[in-house]
Each structure stands twice: as structure tokens, then as C-alpha cells.
């Protein structure tokens, strides 16, 4: 399976702290994408990192990718209460660009 698996399953931090979520997958990928999902809502695309990239930044987000270890991490700096959501990593592989999702990390940022 190419499933992305996030760790931890749940994370609770105080506002202003950094949050780190990890993801592992099982096979070669074209890229890896991270998404946020607020409760009961659709998925918001956060960032895409290609297989030949090692690190990528977008605002308060920092994503790393280690293809030798088949792992990725998402760092949210200076967290805010509005960052409370589920976060999913999704490796993309194959000619049809299918994403394979894990069960996500539920992040709670306490004000």
C-alpha cells in the first residue's frame, strides 16, 4: 500500500507554540501533499513538495521530505487557535496522480 500514515494521531498545544506532524509512506512517489480539514468541511490544500525537493516553506508552514526514509513532516510555527483542524499527508504516485490518504493528525490549539 502507498498509504500516508500520520503521527501523532492527536496533538494538543498552546497558542504560540510550534506543532510538528509526521508522515510515512511505503513506496516511490511523484510528490507529497499536505491538507487541512476543519470539522465537517472540505480539504484545503496547504503545500506540495516534489520528490526531488527536501524542504519547502509557505508562510508559517515548513514541510520536509526524506525520500530515503519515505517520510515527511509538517511544521506549523507560532500556532493560532484557528489552526485547530485535522491535517493529512497524501503521497501522490503513478501516471494518474492518485493520492493515498492516512487517517490524519487532529491538532487542537488552545487559546
Amino acid at each position, binding site marked *: 500500500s502507498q498509504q500516508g500514515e500520520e503521527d501523532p494521531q492527536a496533538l494538543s498545544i498552546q497558542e504560540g507554540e510550534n506543532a510538528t506532524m509526521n508522515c510515512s509512506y511505503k513506496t516511490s512517489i511523484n510528490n507529497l501533499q499536505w491538507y487541512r480539514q476543519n470539522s*465537517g*468541511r472540505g480539504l484545503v490544500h496547504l503545500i*506540495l513538495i516534489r520528490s526531488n525537493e527536501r524542504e519547502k516553506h509557505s508562510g508559517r508552514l515548513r514541510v520536509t521530505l526524506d525520500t530515503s526514509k519515505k517520510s515527511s513532516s509538517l511544521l506549523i510555527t507560532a500556532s493560532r487557535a484557528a489552526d485547530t483542524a485535522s491535517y493529512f499527508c497524501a503521497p501522490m504516485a503513478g501516471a494518474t*496522480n*492518485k493520492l493515498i*490518504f492516512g487517517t490524519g493528525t487532529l491538532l487542537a490549539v488552545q487559546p
Partner: protein
Amino acid sequence: SQTIHQWPATLVQPVGSPLSLECTVEGTSNPNLYWYRQAAGRGLQLLFYSVGIGQISSEVPQNLSASRPQDRQFILSSKKLLLSDSGFYLCAWNGVAGYNEQFFGPGTRLTVL
């Protein structure tokens, strides 16, 4: 800019009734289209994908079917719903070669009673 629409947003249907969920994409042409289902507290499971009109690939055996009658329209259907079909259904599109971000619609929450 590209946008993706899904409707209805919420649906409550009795067991054994038919289903039709629609997804349309604007502002792009020849996208890859995808249907996912998310059970409560779970990740997303890919159900179908389509690389062109009339081209449908099924990922898992199930009670559902998909069709793509037009380039930017993707429909998820069932002739007779089961209780296990309840969930959150998300449509997604993937842009042209070189732009591999996959963007999701707002979803349809289906409850089968």
C-alpha cells in the same frame, strides 16, 4: 481561476433509494477527476478516478458507480443505497501536466437511514 462545485451539500436518503451526486469544475479543461469517501473519523478513500470523458476507473468494489458525461462534470451514482454508503463524499480535480496539486470540492454529507 479554477473552482470546483459539489451538490447537494447535505443529503438524507432511505435505504434502497437511488443516489446522484454531481461535481463540476470551472476554469480548466481536461482535468483528472476523483471521487473520495470519508467515513466518520477516518481518512479519505479513493473510489473512482477519470482521465477523460467516458473513462472511469474504480478503485474499490462497491455499491456505487461513476460517470463523466462532459469534460468538467463527474457524477457519482447508486441504484440502491445501503446503510454503509453513509459518509462524506469529496470530489477533486488535478490540473494539467506539471501542475499536480489536487484540489477538493466542499463535499456532500450523505446519511442513509
